């Protein structure tokens, strides 16, 4: 019996790139769910724009990962034909879109993490990655500013918006520490010069978050002990539902040309 699912190999560099590529892919998916449903038309455009940027980053990263993997897997095979277990995004990205406060708070958390990450990747030993990073860093800088503005506006806005923003941060915080967790994949990337260990991004992230939270008159939630393991392929119950939707056409029309 054959299965149409594909499975990338276990090379550390491929895994490092898939973690990042899947993070962009999955967050892009969640943001695209807002399309047509945002509180103001300008945010339909802004969230769509961010989703589109992240999708572009994901495509570049999955393509590069597929090249390095050596099985000639293209971006679509990687995006649509893996089993859940082989998607390597941090769990944070796959949480349902939530309300507008949740969306903006997550965008801030992620963009404040992607910004130093893409900044460092501009110096990647892999010239392809360095080139991708040069473009991405500009995009993510805008994402970070945009999310920061909303977190400040909602955090120091009405009573309701403050409550919602606090709830959003409380919901999100337990998923943050995964963004800075280290392992051998990470260590190998640092050693080879492919990219930084995620743990090294923490000081920049802390500084960026603290600045925005202070401006928003919000208190930083307490850290929690559980570390999610999406980057190892262990996801939340939300991931399967999301993939059922995302993969539905590729699964139902094998051999299709789109």
């Amino acid at each position, binding site marked *: 019996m054959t299965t149409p699912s594909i499975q990338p190999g276990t090379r550390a560099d491929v895994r490092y790139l898939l973690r990042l590529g899947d993070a962009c892919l999955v967050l892009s998916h969640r943001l*695209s769910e807002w*399309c047509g449903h*945002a*509180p103001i038309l300008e945010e339909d455009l802004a969230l769509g724009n961010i989703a589109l940027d992240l999708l572009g980053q994901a495509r570049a990263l999955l393509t590069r990962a597929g090249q390095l993997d050596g099985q000639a897997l293209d971006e679509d095979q990687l995006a649509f034909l893996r089993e859940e277990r082989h998607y390597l995004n941090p769990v944070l990205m796959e949480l349902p879109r939530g309300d507008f406060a949740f969306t903006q708070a997550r965008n801030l958390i992620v963009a404040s993490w992607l910004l130093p990450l893409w900044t460092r990747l501009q110096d990647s030993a892999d010239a392809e990655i360095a080139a991708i990073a040069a473009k991405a860093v500009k995009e993510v800088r805008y994402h970070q500013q945009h999310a920061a503005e909303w977190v400040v506006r909602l955090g120091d*806005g*009405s009573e*309701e918006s403050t409550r919602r923003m606090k709830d959003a941060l409380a919901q999100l915080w337990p998923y943050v520490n995964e963004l800075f967790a280290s392992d051998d994949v990470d260590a190998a990337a640092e050693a080879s010069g492919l990219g930084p260990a995620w743990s090294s991004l923490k000081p920049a992230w802390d500084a960026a978050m603290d600045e925005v939270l202070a401006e928003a008159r919000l208190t930083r939630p307490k850290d929690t002990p559980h570390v999610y393991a999406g980057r190892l392929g262990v996801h939340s119950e939300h991931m399967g539902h999301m993939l059922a939707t995302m993969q539905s*056409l590729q699964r139902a029309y094998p051999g299709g040309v789109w």
Partner: protein
Amino acid sequence: RQRNEAFESRIDEGDFIEAKDWMPEHYRKTLVRQISQHAHSEIVGMLPEGNWITRAPTLKRKAILLAKVQDEGGHGLYLYSAAETLGTSRDQMLDALHTGKAKYSSIFNYPTLTWADIGVVGWLVDGAAIMNQVPLCRCSYGPYARAMIRICREESFHQRQGYESLLTMMRDGTDAQKAMVQDAVNRWWWPSLMMFGPADKDSPNSEQSMRWGIKRLTNDELRQKFVDATVPQAELLGITLPDPDLKWNAEREHHDFGAIDWNEFWRVVGGNGPCNTERLQARVKAWDDGAWVRDAALAHARKRAPEARAA
């Protein structure tokens, strides 16, 4: 009266009327109705296409669709701005939409049921929209005409993308994909023809609009142009348009086509299409669910304003 004559003669000379110019109240009202209806169509039109973003079959198609739907939001934005130059606020226009006083294009009351619908909407629906809109690039009201130039450029891009995606499936796809395309064309063909509005004999308001250059061709003229342009595209695709009466009339040098089901047309315009309720509810829900966000933005601005002044 004098102002009215001056206005009419500017129209006759093909001048653009600008926001600060004097204009007759009826002209203003007609324009606000038409532009806001067009703007509403853009934002309601995001819904049927948005329905497929999360299920797009490749990343390239997902990016194209996401960008397209975003463009539609952008069109909504320019059009609301153009209408605002006539003294009606976006909130007023949205309120008219949400309370059912304002209309939007009936075509968006049909559902997108398969991925092929996305291509077909690009090909036929955007195609029909362009046919309707190109003449408006020469419309007498400057801000509207300028918005339409940009919109038409983007719409033809969308139309080509839609057609290209269908061509890919019809040329290189599986049998199941080809059947999907044919099925989508079967469902969208007649509603697309209805996009040009009622037959000329049932469209009494057109004359004044033609006079003002807000409208430049009649419904039936536009519909015929659309049919004539679309038939060869369908042949190239290899799909059959679902009309046994469709054939070239050498005498007229146009295609004849079958009778449109005007009962369906009026039923959908009257609020009883397959998705009228859902589309409006989706917009109202987005607006209501977002009320706290808009309130918070105002509250924040008020809080921070004194700081800014003190600084």
